[in-house]
């Protein structure tokens, strides 16, 4: 069977230009490549995760995706009940019976931290998310290390909005970070990232991308889950996708997006240098 049927349960909406849309893009790419039958449900609440994923499994989808770490438990239960189905959780904690795919978060954060270190004039940068949890913490750890590798006395502010999609609130949070001297911002948000970019543009600050891509970013080191899903689909087609934790390391220059024209060459070089160090194992993160 070389055209896997793939379905995803998403916590948000597919037009958020961030995590959810990224997953959706992955589905579409798989459809394009394999002619697969794809399906998805948006705005799946915590209470209905198992219901939705089980239903897809029952409807005969080969790969059922629970998009995000909060699906880990549900995925485990669905995998138990439907041994025929491959259950995939991007950004999930390693779980028996479930395929989890993770980027090595600190590496990506580090890279962005280095760029921020090269660009920050104030010595203060910031990261925003809706909630506090492991993946974001890890990104921030790397981000801080990268930043302090350039500006050892630099400070990293962290703020939470409690809402992945509230653009206006994210914008206000960004304003406040900027007024606390932060001049590079890293939104780790769904649709709400737009507000952060808007605030940065209005107030002469910069953004870097981790879940989203935007021309106005200095650069994006995107945790590209579309690619991760494609990888999973490829493995599945080859019959090699296993229920285990796949970790994607920063191994290629392309994992760093294009630099914004305003980023000076020496900062770009610093970033490339950092990639080399990570690749070569000179820099490690656990």
């Amino acid at each position: 069977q070389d055209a896997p049927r793939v379905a995803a349960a998403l916590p948000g909406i597919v037009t958020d230009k961030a995590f959810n849309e990224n997953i959706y893009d992955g589905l579409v790419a798989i459809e394009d490549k394999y002619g697969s039958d794809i399906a998805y449900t948006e705005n799946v609440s915590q209470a209905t995760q198992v219901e939705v994923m089980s239903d897809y499994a029952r409807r005969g989808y080969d790969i059922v995706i629970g998009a995000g770490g909060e699906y880990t438990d549900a995925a485990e239960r669905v995998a138990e009940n439907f041994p025929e189905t491959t259950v995939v959780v991007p950004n999930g904690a390693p779980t028996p019976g479930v395929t989890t795919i993770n980027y090595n978060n600190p590496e990506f954060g580090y890279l962005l931290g280095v760029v921020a270190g090269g660009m920050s004039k104030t010595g203060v940068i910031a990261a925003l998310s809706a909630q506090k949890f492991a993946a974001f913490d890890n990104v921030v750890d790397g981000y801080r290390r990268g930043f302090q590798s350039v500006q050892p006395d630099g400070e990293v502010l962290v703020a939470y909005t409690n809402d992945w999609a509230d653009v206006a609130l994210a914008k206000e949070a960004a304003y406040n970070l900027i007024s606390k001297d932060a001049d590079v911002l890293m939104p780790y948000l769904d649709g709400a990232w737009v507000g952060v970019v808007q605030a940065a543009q209005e107030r002469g600050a910069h953004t870097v991308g981790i879940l989203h891509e935007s021309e106005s970013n200095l650069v994006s080191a995107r945790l590209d889950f579309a690619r991760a899903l494609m990888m999973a689909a490829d493995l599945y087609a080859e019959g090699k996708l296993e229920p285990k934790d796949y970790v994607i390391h920063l191994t290629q220059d392309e994992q760093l997006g294009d630099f914004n024209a305003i980023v000076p060459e020496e900062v770009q070089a610093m970033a490339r240098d950092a990639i080399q160090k990570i690749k070569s194992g000179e820099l490690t993160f656990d």
Partner: protein
Amino acid sequence: MFDFLTDASQLADVLGTALRLSIPLIFAAMGGLLCERSGVFNIALEGQILFGAFGAAVGAYYFGTPYMGLLIAIAFGALSGVLLAVLGVTLRVNQIVVGIAIILFAAGFTSFMSRLLFPGGGNSLKLNGFENIDIPVLSDIPVLGPVLFSQNGLVYGALFAVIAVHFVLFRTRVGMSIRAVGESPAAADAAGIHVFGLRYACVIVGSSMAALGGAYLVLTQVLLFSDNMSAGKGFIALAAIVLGRWQPRIAFMACLLFGFFDAVQLRLQFDQPEIPFQVFAALPYLVAILALVGLMGQANPPASVGRPYDREMR
């Protein structure tokens, strides 16, 4: 921790944030207050903000000007008001059920339609919004100048709404009738006042006002439409009405209070990374509860609020 209170530029920022977060609340609270004063409980504010935001995006996107956005936002708000009035006033369906149903419907309808109407979804819009208007001289005052006198038209509109609602309710004859209808429709009816007419008018105008809160979000704040962007503001506005004891001026201050503490909590969070951010996020709500409890005496809502009027009922 509270250094932003002493640093002028930071203070201006916090106050600016507070005001921006308050404006949608003010529109919604004034709209809701008008409805409640006429005896109709409008719990649908949340949905009406969303309708307004959606209408504003539709207008600004298809006509290229924020003014059309405003117009269509008002139209959406008015339509939801008509719905509430027909069901909750004429057909005497429980107003709370109608309100919640409107909220549910608004959430689904606007998300759904935004996908049909906006290519790439409402999140990718870049709408033309309103520019700030600097009031000469005043806007140069330090701290307060930029906060108060360099704002866009809708901010001034919100302040005007407060004054207008207060003026109409307490300085005009029709306002007196509205208050009477909200307090005792039977007495108003016997005095020859059109109970239903006034309730319809208040609900439609009030709902349109709430919709302006949504239009403000879209046309001046984020210039795009995102699903459920009302994000609970309608409920906070309801709280502000009670906190404001059904008085426009106090309700206005309650909105500012919410806005201020929301701004402050954003500020406090990243100064205290060791304290869970939720502690600060809960601050506006805790302050509101304390304010409610601390108020001396009790505030009485308009006596007939939420009770549909039926002439022949004893």
